[in-house]
């Protein structure tokens, strides 16, 4: 019985690992790495890479600049309806991205909620690069929010109190105490959000379309290419895997460094006495 159970566990693990790793390995086995990255140098892939980098960068900076102070406020203040606000922030996480695209159209489309106002100002958002930025920001910001609020909540309130009794006003407390102490969690949330934003597909294709060189991001280019030029689709996919792996390694490395520093301070409490 024991042997049988142990074998069962081993088989289940082997299947799970094979299932997860095989497709990823297949991408790199199908075409040699040199050719894969060569395919990124021209045409559709290069255009998509530029669109992705530009829109993701703008969206991500906006999410960080607006999301960080907002997360700080939501983490520190206790007010009626806070739970509702926090739940609403997480709603996009459980929405299918296509729904997010429709929602963005309903808000910013020509016949949408703000369509008239935007039209009067001569601003057209759908099917422009601005639409890609909005779609990416909409889909990635809950990931950042969630992590950032948790990071700020984890900052010891006594340290904030201590800073205040030392004469620090709210802005100084934020910049010199809360921000540096939450930096690790903010970095992790930022990496997660960035990865989610780079991979954004459903909301973008509905709200921004898939116009090469304008709104066609890398995931959209994979979709557009996989029937015409499978090698290019493979190359872009390989690029994603590399970027994803780098983000993951950064996160793990950070977690490990943090653990190591906690470990040091716990078990070597004193170097001088």
């Amino acid at each position, binding site marked *: 019985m024991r042997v049988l159970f142990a074998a069962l566990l081993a088989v289940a693990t082997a299947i799970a690992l094979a299932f997860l790793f095989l497709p990823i390995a297949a991408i790199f086995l199908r075409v040699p790495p040199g050719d894969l990255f060569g395919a990124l140098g021209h045409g559709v892939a290069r255009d998509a890479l530029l669109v992705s980098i530009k829109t993701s960068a703008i969206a991500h900076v906006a999410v960080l600049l607006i999301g960080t102070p907002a997360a700080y406020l939501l983490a520190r203040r206790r007010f009626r309806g806070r739970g509702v606000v926090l739940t609403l922030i997480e709603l996009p996480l459980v929405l299918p991205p296509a729904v997010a695209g429709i929602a963005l159209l309903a808000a910013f489309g020509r016949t949408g909620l703000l369509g008239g106002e935007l039209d009067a100002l001569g601003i057209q958002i759908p099917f422009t690069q601005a639409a890609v930025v909005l779609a990416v920001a909409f889909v990635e910001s809950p990931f950042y929010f969630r992590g950032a609020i948790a990071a700020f909540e984890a900052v*010891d309130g*006594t*340290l904030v*109190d*201590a*800073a*205040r*009794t*030392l*004469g*620090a*006003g709210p802005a100084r407390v934020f910049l*010199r*105490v809360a921000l*540096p*102490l939450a930096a690790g969690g903010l970095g992790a949330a930022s990496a997660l959000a960035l990865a989610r934003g780079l991979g954004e597909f459903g909301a973008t294709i509905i709200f921004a379309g898939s116009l090469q060189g304008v709104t066609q991001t890398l995931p959209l280019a994979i979709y557009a290419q996989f029937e015409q030029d499978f090698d290019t689709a493979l190359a872009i996919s390989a690029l994603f895997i590399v970027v994803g792996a780098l983000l993951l390694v950064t996160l793990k490395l950070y977690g490990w460094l943090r653990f190591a*520093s906690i470990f*040091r*301070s716990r078990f*070597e*409490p*004193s*170097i*001088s*006495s």
Partner: protein
Amino acid sequence: MASLRVDLSLPLRAFDLELALEAGPETVALVGPSGAGKTSLLRAIAGLSRPARGTVSCADDVWFDSPSGINRRPEERSVGFVFQEYALFPHLSVEQNVTFGGGRADGLLRRLRIEHLARTKPSELSGGERQRVALARALARGPRVLLLDEPMAALDPHTRGKVRAELHDLLRELALPALLVTHDFEDAAALADRVGVLVDGRLRQIGTPAELLGSPADPFVAEFAGANVLDGIAESGPDGLTRFHLDAERVVYSTDEARGRAALVVYPWDVSLARVAADDSALNHLGGEIVSLVQVGNRVRVRLPFLTAEITAASAERLALRPGEAVVASFKATQARLLPAD
């Protein structure tokens, strides 16, 4: 001279903290069980929580006054706060911690003998060093009032005595109104000019350590000051003494007067131990088997079923006391205080 005046009411979870206190350039310790409102009081003085009503002022500087609606922010009150567990900024070096609120660090670091640690991070410091950094940080802006929340609690017993002596000297030298919160009466008695006993948000008694020990206001204060508190029935006895019945068999005598239910207070250091009841001037002899022996420095606390005696380690050695052995505890009727029962 700057003096701190506090008269406030602050609603807490289980009760309201109601307290009036005035402190000149002296150290006032607030002792009491945990949850008595000690930390809440310090936070209210620092502006970290808002009392329902009352006033907090330092000399002619009003920090809080409910009638006129004054409530200055913590950063606008000249307070040095040493937090429980010290609350040092973990991402800043010792020097950066100390200069966080402005001012220069070198003089204070030298005064507290931590200048060699200026570039060290708090996680690498020992408990005693952390306490000194917290003190330096609290003093760096030249506060008019110093608030210390359990400054000794995070220290191991080994360093406690030394750190206590240093803190005592520092507080004397500063001559600031200093409020020190502790749950340890010994720390309070060693550090403070006056000690206040806070229970359930009320000040039961405030006075010099000697006053609290000599005439505790109630059995709780006595117990907190380290006394044995024994319940029983008092009645008038021979020669103007009070006879005090602990139970049906055991009787002791006191020179204090009391009738009916009362509490007898005797300090452990006033109780002597012997193998057999000595024929001496002490009127009170209580026999019992030793429950435990705990050595504290050069003294030994001997716990008996009824009370605890504190004798020198040398005496304990000479009597060869062991747990389970029968001994007789003796104390004089003049050392047995009687207080109305709680």
